[in-house]
């Protein structure tokens, strides 16, 4: 057990980390925006706000996020109902696929969507807004399925039965009984989906038509294509503010969800009995498999199938590096880089994230807690841009090294780690430790035999998420990755942006590798969690 003073000291670690790698870059962005020509001025803000393109991009960003959210809800809500009420074969698979989809690298999703839609012969869907919406649907459908599905399963179906007994027809039961009770979960998950799609980057960058840009892509173009750092910084600040507002709304909605009472501890699931129920469940299985597994299958078909039938040509090409290719190193080195960066990022995120969780598990006001749980990485582009312009000059110059990449990836992953570890830490807190002490366990033994084994489960899940996120991180990495050490998503992006079958084939081969690694990491740690029971 730690004293108060020791806990305060412990705070210093995450505080220092965030001050240096988040607050300092954000301040640097502010200076870049407000101090462009050696003196303080608001001119760049005026310049940006008077540009009609800024407003049309902002409108497109909001519109795209709203459309993505609505589409995701429309598709996922019926599915959430099926998951909440029925027990059936293949349910575990669908749930696992949805989790994998959620952490799937955006670059891979973009590649998969264009590949699968072209394969289906609907080229209209392979580019532009339809393709972006499809990619957003794939990435976020799991959020709604899981969040609303879980919540729905805990709503007592007897309440609806009571309404039926009181003479309410099905539509009234839904409108007057189910919906009011379900709405908080739907709102909370909508807020999350809106936030994620509002800050979508890789998908829009790759699938968007020329000139189609949301705020994230506009920031990227301003900085990387036009080298207009002050305007890029203004946009980044606008993005930070908008994201902060959305985060506040989202955490408020999620908190409201937690305080709802009257939930069932154990959901009552039934096997589909009537023919109608069976066909609904069957339709759900088919649709969700098509949506969640289809794009993955398309990537593998493209990765193994070249112009001359089935072959391993694309994979073989990954091992070679010649002067003519667009990557400075062989693509297989990108795989190695990705793994090294992801492991480093996971370690950093686990350390910082669990320290935050540890301190939060003690005394923390709800406000402090929400602040620390805010996913900083939602605007990865802003993060990457801030780090890029901050650490390339004395006093702190990290740009020559690769160190910033795992740091940026860790910043994205830390809130996920904290969220995963916090509940288990809370369950260890309190009298479980006291029980160990009364049974004769020294503080060290308590840590070794009680704290550690209990946290390990949470840590395993956290590590899996952190690893998956780091492996797929694109928005920040694209600013920071130098040609000597590209990551898999960077390599995929470069290959996708280059002409020729072999480049496309290599993009798909790399995507398939990333899919396998991500799925293994996420599903594997989920396994670990259940087998850790008898640790």
């Amino acid at each position, binding site marked *: 057990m730690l004293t108060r003073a020791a806990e305060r000291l412990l705070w210093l670690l995450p505080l220092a980390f965030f001050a240096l790698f988040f607050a300092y870059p954000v301040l640097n962005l502010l200076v870049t925006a407000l101090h462009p020509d050696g003196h303080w001025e608001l001119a760049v803000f005026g310049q940006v706000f008077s540009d009609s393109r800024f407003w049309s991009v902002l409108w497109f960003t909001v519109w795209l996020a709203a459309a993505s959210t609505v589409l995701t809800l429309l598709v996922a809500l019926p599915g959430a109902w099926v998951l909440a009420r029925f027990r059936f074969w293949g349910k575990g698979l669908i749930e696992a696929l949805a989790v994998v989809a959620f952490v799937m690298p955006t670059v891979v999703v973009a590649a998969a969507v264009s590949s699968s839609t072209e394969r289906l012969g609907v080229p209209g869907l392979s580019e532009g807004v339809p393709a972006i919406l499809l990619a957003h649907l794939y990435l976020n459908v799991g959020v709604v399925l899981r969040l609303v599905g879980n919540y729905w399963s805990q709503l007592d179906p007897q309440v609806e039965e009571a309404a039926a007994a009181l003479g309410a027809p099905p539509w009234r039961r839904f409108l007057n009984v189910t919906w009011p009770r379900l709405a908080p979960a739907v709102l909370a998950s909508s807020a999350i989906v809106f936030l994620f799609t509002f800050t979508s980057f890789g998908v829009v960058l790759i699938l968007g038509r020329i000139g189609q840009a949301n705020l994230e892509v506009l920031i990227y173009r301003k900085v990387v294509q036009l080298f207009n750092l002050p305007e890029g910084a203004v946009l980044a600040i606008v993005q930070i503010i908008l994201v902060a507002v959305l985060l506040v709304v989202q955490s408020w909605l999620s908190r409201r969800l937690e305080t709802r009472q009257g939930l069932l501890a154990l959901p009552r699931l039934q096997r589909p009995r009537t023919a109608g129920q069976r066909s609904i469940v069957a339709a759900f299985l088919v649709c969700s498999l098509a949506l969640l597994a289809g794009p993955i299958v398309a990537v593998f078909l493209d990765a193994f199938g070249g112009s001359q039938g089935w072959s391993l040509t694309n994979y073989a090409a990954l091992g070679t590096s010649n002067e003519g290719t667009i990557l400075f190193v062989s693509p297989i080195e990108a795989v190695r880089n990705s793994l090294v960066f992801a492991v480093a990022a996971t370690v950093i995120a686990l350390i910082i994230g669990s320290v935050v969780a540890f301190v939060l598990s003690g005394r923390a006001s709800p406000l402090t807690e929400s602040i620390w749980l805010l996913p900083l990485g939602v605007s990865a582009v802003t993060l990457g841009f801030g780090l890029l312009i901050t650490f390339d000059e004395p006093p702190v110059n990290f740009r020559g090294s690769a160190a910033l990449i795992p740091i940026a990836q860790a910043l994205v992953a830390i809130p996920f780690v904290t969220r995963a570890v916090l509940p288990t830490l809370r369950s260890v807190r309190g009298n479980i430790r*006291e029980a*160990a002490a009364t049974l*004769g366990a*020294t503080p060290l*033994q308590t840590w070794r035999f009680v704290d550690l084994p209990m946290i390990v489960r949470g840590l395993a899940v956290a590590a899996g998420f952190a690893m998956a996120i780091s492996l797929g991180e694109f928005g920040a990495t694209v600013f920071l990755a130098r040609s000597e050490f590209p990551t898999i998503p960077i390599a995929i992006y470069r290959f996708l942006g280059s002409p020729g079958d072999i480049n496309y084939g290599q993009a798909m081969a790399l995507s398939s590798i990333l899919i396998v690694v991500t799925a293994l990491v996420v599903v594997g740690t989920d396994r670990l969690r259940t087998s850790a029971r*008898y640790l």
Partner: protein
Amino acid sequence: MSELEIRHLHVVYDDEPVVKDVSLRVPAGGRLAILGPSGSGKSSILRAIAGLVPSRGEVLLAGSSLAGVPTHRRDVGLMFQDNALFTHLNVVDNVGFGLRMRGATRSRARVQAQRFLELVGLEHKREAAVTDLSGGEQQRVALARTLAPGPAVVLLDEPVGALDRALREELLVAMTQVFDELRTTVVMVTHDQSEAFEIGRDVAVMRDGRISVAGAAAQVWANPQDSWTARFLGLNNVMEPGQPLHAALGCVPGVTTLLRPSLSRVADAGDARAARVLTGVVEWSRFRGGLYRAALSELSVGGSPVPGARVEVWSDRELEQGPAIAFTIADDDLVPLND
């Protein structure tokens, strides 16, 4: 098994004194039940004995002070109100935990634990996850876990609190058997008086951080000391000086007096004129806890009516409604109280 004594114990939570100057003694192999309403500070006494909260005063185990001794070296077993089972361990490893902490190998701890599982009748669930057990089973695991390392004293915090009545009875019987067999020194905390008198050889009643009465169980029952304790034990016939019944029964003037509810029935209401005979009409009667409890009204003592008064009587037979019935009042039916 050792003697436990606490002297002038004070516990303060967030500047709020919750235990005020409590002194108690439990002989080796003795069983003390601390009875009190929730919030009276009884759990804090246990936590102070276990060294989980800072306290003032002395805690002596087998005659030596525990001051400065950390929890894990105090050799006390504490069974928590919500069990606090290790959810990452299965049943047998929960029970063997204390033995392992004392240096036993895993296999030896498991063998030892098995004995205690048999004692609480859970040997068939040894490999089960504790989260898969019912509430009663979880409580039995918690009991076995507390007993397994053979602590010098066992502290029980509402050990059967969350259970339904049948399970409660079952576990209480099992517990007394185990304690008798192991000659365990026990301090139990409860808000339920039937539990307290069933487990405790000695009973201490707590109110607002202080002991209001303590002693052998029968003695506390017979002489509850003050009107609050009497009422808390379910003895409701408290007569204050100045009340008509107080005077009519000839209580010592100025002394609050308890009329015990288990009065002897007089078969013939004709003797009602005798000075120490109480007559009345049954207003209502209920069967509760093996006894019929009835309220009498329209009372008269020695033939003269006592308007407005009402008493509770306990009887092993149902009292008939309708005509007035009569009870004699012996000297020891009137218990003087201290307030």
